[in-house]
């Protein structure tokens, strides 16, 4: 008995959530007809034509609209377009419920992104005697429950399942199964379909003359290793349809390796104290998460993007000891800002903390009451947990520079959709 690995992904996830939650489209939509959806887009800021498209339904895409396109351009292509604002909270909650449905069908499951999930089941087995039928069962369940279409790739391992899933997006029914031992469907694909290689696929085509994945499989391991280092082994393995990665059902619960927050500012900031206010807000958020996870960071990084999103820097510095307290880390971030800021207007700021340790003991200080500080942080965390992040914040967040209040209405930089 071997395992069959599957990758399921939702079609135009954010846009589908919007369509599915709007009564006016319910009657006409059909699972097997992409063109029964309205031409709808989710735009970062529907009020501004310079806002960008975050997601588009298949009929919108059929009119030439792509994600990351400016709204103004999209409306020129399709004036009748339905434009809606993002509701990030709805998408994240829907995502969690879909993951639950997948787990009910296939207990061995690993979330891969907000709208993708790996799963695996034994084959041959009496429970999943027809793999394609089992996949179709999941597809139908997700449609019945959420009115969202999904595509499923089935293959002997995770990497092939990911590639098969991409093929599934182009076939009727949206399901592709590559049984074990048959590499033909993989090998006839164009080399650019090798998922995860980025520019390396281009190198394979240009320098090795490989047109298809089959061509890649005929390049010797040594030659690949000479050109790509350790990546050579990976490419060799993948081209032979091999990938040993197991399913990690708890992948999303593993301890973090770093924490970071970033915000795009509503205008260019030129004043140091305004930038400093935003840095402190982001750092507070990072430290809150560190404390929640019982971790401390020994290195802190500051990222800055200048006006018009042109240029900027990311610089990190080690701390003398691991911290989870904003006041201990903040001066280092200011030092990074002072050292590397060219003085240009700042449009986006990011703060990260990594080199994480498990929170342990507190080195006491001559000039500061550390136990009192620990207790204060604990109390603030409790208040935030119970009454929300906007129940208690620094006075600086009320100044014109403060981003905390507008950020609290957003998730991942887009409107959460909850008042």
């Amino acid at each position: 008995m071997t395992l069959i690995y599957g990758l399921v992904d939702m079609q135009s996830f954010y846009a589908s959530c919007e369509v599915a939650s709007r009564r006016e489209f319910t009657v006409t939509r059909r699972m097997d007809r992409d063109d029964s959806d309205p031409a709808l887009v989710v735009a970062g800021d529907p009020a501004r034509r310079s806002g960008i498209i975050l997601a588009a339904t298949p009929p919108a895409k059929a009119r030439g609209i792509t994600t990351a396109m400016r709204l103004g351009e999209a409306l020129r292509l399709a004036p009748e377009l339905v434009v809606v604002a993002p509701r990030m909270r709805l998408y994240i909650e829907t995502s969690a419920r879909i993951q639950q449905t997948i787990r009910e069908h296939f207990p061995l499951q690993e979330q891969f992104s907000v709208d993708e999930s790996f799963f695996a089941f034994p084959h041959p087995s009496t429970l999943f005697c027809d793999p394609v039928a089992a996949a179709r069962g999941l597809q139908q369940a997700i449609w019945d429950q959420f009115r969202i279409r999904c595509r499923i790739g089935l293959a002997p391992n995770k990497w092939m399942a990911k590639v098969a899933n991409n093929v599934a997006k182009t076939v009727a029914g949206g399901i592709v199964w590559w049984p074990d031992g048959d590499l033909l469907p993989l090998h006839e694909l164009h080399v650019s379909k090798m998922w995860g290689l980025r520019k390396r696929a281009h190198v394979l085509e240009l320098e090795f003359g490989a047109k298809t994945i089959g061509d890649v499989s005929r390049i010797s391991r040594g030659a690949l290793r000479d050109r790509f280092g350790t990546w050579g082994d990976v490419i060799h393995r993948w081209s032979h349809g091999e990938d040993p990665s197991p399913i990690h059902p708890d992948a999303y619960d593993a301890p973090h390796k770093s924490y970071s927050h970033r915000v795009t500012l509503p205008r260019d900031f030129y004043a140091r104290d305004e930038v400093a206010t935003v840095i402190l807000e982001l750092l507070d958020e990072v430290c809150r998460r560190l404390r929640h996870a019982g971790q401390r960071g020994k290195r802190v990084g500051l990222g800055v993007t200048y006006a018009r999103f042109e240029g900027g820097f990311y610089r990190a510095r080690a701390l003398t000891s691991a911290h989870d307290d904003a006041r201990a880390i903040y001066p280092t971030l200011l030092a990074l800002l002072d050292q590397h800021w060219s003085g240009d207007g700042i449009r986006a700021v990011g703060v990260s903390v990594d080199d994480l340790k498990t929170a342990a003991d507190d080195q006491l200080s001559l000039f500061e009451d550390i136990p009192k500080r620990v207790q204060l942080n604990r109390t603030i965390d409790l208040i935030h947990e119970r009454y929300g992040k906007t129940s208690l914040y620094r006075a600086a967040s009320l100044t014109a520079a403060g981003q905390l209040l507008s950020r609290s209405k957003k998730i991942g930089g887009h409107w959460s959709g909850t008042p």
Partner: protein
Amino acid sequence: MQFVIKKNELLTGLQQIVRVIPSRTTKPILYGVKIDAEFNRIRMTAYDLEIGLEILIENKDQEQVEVLQVEEPGSIVINAKFLLEIIRKLPQQLVRFNLKNHIATIQSGAAIYTLNGLDSREFPLLPQVDDDEKLTMASTLLLQSIQKTVYAVATIESRPTLTGVHFKLKNDILTLTGTDSHRLSNLKISVDTLKEYSFEEAIMPGKTLQELLRILPASEEMVEITLADHQMLIRYDNIHFYSRLIEGTYPDISRIIPETFRTSIKIGTKNLIESIERAALLARENDNHVIRLHLRPNQTEITSTSQELGKISEVIEPQTFQGEELMLACNARFMLESLKTIDTEDVSIQFTGPGSAFIITPVESDTNHLQLILPVRLNHA
């Protein structure tokens, strides 16, 4: 400018000078050494605006052999590291310098170098220090005093004043203090002063002091210290060392030194160091290098636990014990760095409790040296 100089004199001076030359700077002239030929001496200057070093080479009256002969005064700036390499490789013991229009000709035996120099008027001026008021002490004493305090200063600039050693002079007593807020070292020494010289506050950068440690000779030679205009000048023999001082107010440490103690021990310094070094092997993985001290009347127990590696425990017998039994945790690295500045056979440690500072002092010593360490608060125990 024209002069003849002995190669070795020039080499010794230049080797000191290049220590102060910055490895990266936005002002290219600072890569240079300024050479001034005066009527009877040569003055070499390096200045990175943080540290300045001035070395004088002259014929000493009592010596028979002339090291220098200035034929025509003048001044030029030459890339210091490059000049050092050239001088090092010269074939003969005598070097002739000749300067015309910012071009220096260096001649030794048959070898002739022609080097492009820079205009010395563009070189930053060293601060003017009035030497009416000064304090005097033996070089080796200054060297030791710095060593015993500079280890404790902060390396991160969250409080800039803590990155330096604080100097204070009052009633012919010089007090040096270094702290990074987790430990502190405080040393008082008697010095000679001119005109009852005193000052309240001078914070000298830790990095500059590390540089000074490499330049100061470990001898009884006398060193003069003078303050002026946010600068400190340290002078001995033919060397003038200038340092910028850190601006800001140093925290008042008089209130944080405890005066009553719960537990006091006297213990062999060497035994304690070795025992902590053994325990520290297991504390390395831990971010705070935590070891535990359990103080009992006839036993001082040192333990360290690592979840991955295991546990170590060692008992040593203190010379004396006073007060109550006590258990506390502290940073092994802080302990070792403190104990290694102690040059007496025994050391006295006075504790106030598991959550407050303890004091380390040498036993039966002439030096008034006090070190303070704050414990680590254990969260899981």
